[in-house]
């Protein structure tokens, strides 16, 4: 760690761990409900558990991105953050808004729009919070003498993510228009600007972990984010096939969303090649595992599994089924959860000065969570394909099909237990590192 203000990132990462753990608990509530064990229905019905599960995912990932920015920007800009106090104010207000939203979901206070359930009143507080965050990052960069491509791409991703939140706050009388602009937020976040954030973090980690020349890494970063927007913007059309808008999206969405895996493929090739090319043997192997792992799993989860049902001819059968849940879980895990866990794994030894680089527990956390998530994805996939065949082809009743595929959720719960074991081990490692200290300054490898 080179700058004292980087320490603030630790508390963002700590909040990440807490929210991630809560997200998993609500995931289990949903999984058990799917096999008929819904004893909590009167207090936490499925729609509450789902809103909490997905919103916690969004909030912990955004918290992780913010922590990553607070850690990366000072080093890239070669100066302290503009204000550490304001960064703490931002962290506390973010936690308060998040907790208020989650508590509200249990009392029927929400918007009821998938992924954007936070009520509009709280949306304004989210906007203020994000403006404060961006203010700190942008003024730090503004005053800096060095502005790197990595920092600019990361910041661009964060600024666009904030701007794209706005269309989701508008009320529309038509469900179709509502859905159309809801995807401006959700799709353009996860298949657009969040990839910029991921690319920025990945680029920073590869520079640090492989020792490959910054100019080479940042050149390919431009190509990757270029491919992301080239395919991802018009790829939004794959959400517009069957929601009551013009047929032109069947062609535009089909062609461009089929190109979306290219950006993830480029990212995977980029990371693996830089690792091979690198002459530096960084001792933090766990951070390297998470970094390279993120690039490969995101290609499989977001790229390949997304492609599997993105063409309109396939999507007409899979739209609105568990096939989407299969893709969603592995994509979010690979592209965003793993990259946040990668930057945490890299930053922790530098912030605390404790070199727990290669503990067995750290490696076990990586493998158990990855094998568990792969198993969950397969379980969702088998349930989804069975659902498509029985419901959409054989025309069986929805609930008859759900009862038929319930057994796959038993498998899913078993794999989720494995996944959870891995994440618990990661959290224990996080706790064992202890708090950040000034003694760790300038001790970075």
């Amino acid at each position, binding site marked *: 760690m080179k700058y004292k203000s980087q320490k603030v990132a630790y508390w963002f990462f700590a909040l990440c761990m807490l929210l991630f753990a809560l997200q998993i608990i609500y995931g289990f509530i949903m999984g058990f409900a799917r096999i008929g064990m819904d004893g909590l229905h009167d207090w936490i019905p499925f729609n509450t558990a789902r809103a909490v599960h997905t919103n916690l995912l969004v909030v912990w990932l955004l918290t992780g991105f913010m922590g990553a920015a607070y850690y990366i920007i000072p080093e890239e800009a070669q100066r302290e953050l503009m204000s550490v106090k304001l960064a703490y104010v931002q962290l506390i207000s973010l936690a308060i808004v998040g907790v208020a939203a989650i508590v509200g979901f249990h009392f029927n206070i929400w918007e009821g729009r998938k992924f954007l359930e936070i009520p509009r009143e709280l949306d304004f507080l989210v906007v203020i919070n994000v403006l404060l965050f961006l203010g700190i990052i942008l003024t730090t960069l503004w005053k800096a003498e060095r502005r790197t491509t990595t920092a600019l791409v990361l910041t661009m991703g964060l600024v666009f993510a904030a701007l794209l939140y706005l269309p989701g706050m508008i009320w529309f009388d038509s469900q179709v228009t509502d859905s159309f602009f809801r995807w401006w937020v959700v799709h353009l976040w996860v298949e657009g600007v969040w990839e910029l954030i991921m690319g920025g973090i990945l680029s920073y980690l590869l520079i640090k972990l492989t020792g490959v020349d910054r100019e080479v890494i940042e050149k390919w970063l431009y*190509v990757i984010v270029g491919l992301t927007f080239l395919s991802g913007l018009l790829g939004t059309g794959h959400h517009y096939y*069957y929601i009551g808008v013009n047929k032109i999206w069947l062609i535009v969405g089909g062609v461009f969303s089929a190109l979306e895996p290219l950006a993830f493929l480029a990212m995977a090739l980029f990371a693996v090649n830089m690792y091979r090319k690198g002459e530096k043997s960084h001792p933090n192997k766990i951070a390297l595992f998470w970094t390279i792992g993120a690039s490969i799993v995101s290609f499989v989860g977001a790229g390949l599994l997304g492609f599997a049902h993105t063409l309109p001819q396939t999507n007409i059968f899979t739209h609105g089924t568990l096939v989407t849940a299969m893709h969603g879980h592995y994509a979010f895990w690979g592209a965003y959860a793993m990259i946040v866990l990668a930057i945490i794994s890299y930053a922790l030894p530098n912030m605390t000065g404790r070199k727990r680089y290669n503990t067995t527990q750290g490696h076990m956390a990586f493998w158990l969570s990855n094998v568990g998530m792969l198993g969950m994805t397969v379980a969702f996939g088998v349930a989804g394909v069975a659902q498509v065949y029985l419901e959409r082809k054989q025309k069986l009743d929805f609930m008859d099909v759900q009862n038929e595929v319930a057994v796959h959720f038993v498998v899913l719960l078993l794999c989720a237990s494995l996944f959870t074991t891995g994440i618990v081990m990661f959290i224990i490692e996080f706790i064992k590192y202890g708090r950040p200290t000034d003694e760790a300054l300038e001790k970075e490898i």
Partner: protein
Amino acid sequence: MLSKSQARTFFLGGTVVTFLVFIGLTVYSFMPSNDQTHHEKIDAQVIRGKEIWESNNCMGCHTIMGEGGYYAPELTKVVERRGEGYIKAVLQSPIPWGPKGRKMVKYEMNDADTEAMIAYFKWIGQLDLNGFDRVVSPLAQDEEEVTE
């Protein structure tokens, strides 16, 4: 070999061009001549229905137009499939509706809200979903074929 400035131009140029095309297609999609939603039929009851739909997070379990929680049935064309009486019974039930073992939240809706929900579902049922309504609602499709 590609230089960094060429890579930057590819990124910025590609982004600007696709963004402009995306905005153009959005405008095109919402031109009145391309409307597939019978927008003029959205009245106060349909809007009230959408408010109830959102304020109760129905999408957290059900799907509509294929979007939602995958935990409870798709509700596109539900009026054609189940009839108004069935929907009324579900929404006004004093106990959690639980067909085939999966419970729904108990809403005990009043008549006005129930009518608004039915109006909302009827409007959804009239959308041109580019063929999806026929895949997801086989019963509605069968009915149409019988009528024809």
